[in-house]
């Protein structure tokens, strides 16, 4: 717990005047950072010892009760020497679905950011090789958005049929 307050001090001294929302659930500490300051916050945390980016993911808050923002982007950070973890959240809304890329800070962010784009359509600016990761390039939707049906819009049926006579 002492280490987490330390992170809090570091972040608040570096980003003076920015509204950071701290919360805790079970033994996990979270901080919500405004999207305008996310790059500075991540760099600060990296310099303060959070040397590993465990994961980047996003949540579509369209159907979440009481949510005001559309997308929540989540960074899970880890200090590999002390074992301390911190969750950094930021919120983005349509039509400005843009974030600065975390690739300059941790190069492990490369594929994670591409996956978030693939699934949610959130663009990470400054990424060295930004394109879809998992789905084919011709795919037009972003499947993990809540307004996309589980069974898709018929993309999976759209292939030629090979018969015995043709093969």
């Amino acid at each position, binding site marked *: 717990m002492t280490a987490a307050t330390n992170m809090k001090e570091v972040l608040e001294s570096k980003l003076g005047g920015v509204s950071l929302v701290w919360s805790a659930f079970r033994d996990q500490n979270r901080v919500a950072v405004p999207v305008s300051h996310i790059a500075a916050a991540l760099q600060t945390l990296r310099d303060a010892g959070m040397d590993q980016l465990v994961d980047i993911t996003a949540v579509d808050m369209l159907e*979440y009760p009481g949510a005001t923002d559309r997308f929540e982007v989540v960074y899970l950070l880890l200090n590999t020497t002390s074992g301390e973890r911190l969750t950094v959240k930021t919120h983005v809304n349509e039509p400005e679905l843009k974030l600065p890329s975390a690739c300059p800070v941790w190069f492990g962010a490369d594929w994670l950011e591409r996956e978030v784009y693939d699934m949610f359509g959130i663009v990470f600016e400054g990424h060295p090789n930004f394109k879809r990761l*998992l789905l084919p390039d011709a795919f037009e939707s972003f499947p993990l958005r809540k307004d996309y049906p589980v069974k898709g819009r018929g993309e999976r049926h759209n292939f030629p049929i090979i018969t015995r006579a043709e093969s």
Partner: protein
Amino acid sequence: MPLDLIDSPDLDAGFREGLWTLNFGPQHPATHTTLRLVLQLDGEMVIGAEPDIGFLHSGFEKLAEVLDYNQYVTIVDRMNYISPMANEIAWHHAVEGLLGIELTPRCKYIRTIFAELMRIHDHLLCTGTCVLDLGGATAFMYAFNEREKIYEICERASGQRFHTGYTRVGGLLYDVTDDWIKMVRDFCKTFPKAYKDFAGLVMKNRIFVERTKGVGVLTKEDAIAGSASGPVARASGVERDLRRDEPYLAYNDLDFDVCCAQGGDCYARFQVRMMEMLESLKIIEQAVENLPSGPVFISGTGKEGLPDKTEVYRSIEGLIHHFENIMPNRQMPSPKESYYGATESPNGELGYYIVSDGDFKAYRARTRPPSLLHFSLFSRMIRGCMLSDVAAVLGSINIIAAELDR
């Protein structure tokens, strides 16, 4: 030509034309699964690799939003399919963390035994198939002989040999029998000899050693900044093991060592895997001898755990209890929170980030797949190696496509 010269922009165009591009996959025996690499070659030296993945993207995370916490266990099984139960344990570890459930001691021990059996399971297949790709078919047969025994242990406990679907929120599908305990004990007795044979075929095989030593080096700095975890990170000297650093299940009570190596090359990764098998066996031996008695499900009446099956079939109370747990509108509410729970799966840190909106169903369940992050490091590892080393490096980082693409 040295690698740093290739990168320089004033390299003459004639040389660039001499490079050639090779497509590797998506259906290739050495990929084991389905992934594609576009390799840039200078003669036989790989100077660049562009992975192309998604050939097994099946929408796991979308399914997590329509299935409840107990139902989704059948889907996570199919994620890292060479150690299915490790995924179940990771998933329910995260769910129980979210719901704030503390397991019974017996359940913890049984899950620990299975988690370690799965580690042996996974490492046997990973090592065995990599040796197969590098030209030695015998070790593969030895590995599968032992794997069949673990399949039988799984089958005895759960009824399915492969995708067991054995864990439930707050417990297990069935309690284990004495017969099962005897099987595990037998396995502990016979495994060291089989391991010795297998290790002799792998680690003392000169061809294998020469094809893996110094190949595909990952430095410690790259391993940390590139989010590597598990055996891949430990082989690069990152001393981190969630079993020791963030103890879960029964690992606090058991004595084991964290296996690390320094080289960061393919050989070091295999060394770590081979050593971990012995540590896992040590854990299983301790856990099976100290297996506590008592129930495998938490509390008999609450909504947290499912009732015993015999109770469901034989008494009205049990049936009502079951009904209350299963019907979608009557299930246990979960806190409106987000939670990240991680376990040390055979492949690395396997975590689930769950966002809950109050139902007994995830609003969003994100998998943190170790394979994805390890494979993103592949293009760094393979740079400067020979074309024939691609199979060795791919084998050593143990890419499982279903986990990679989900």
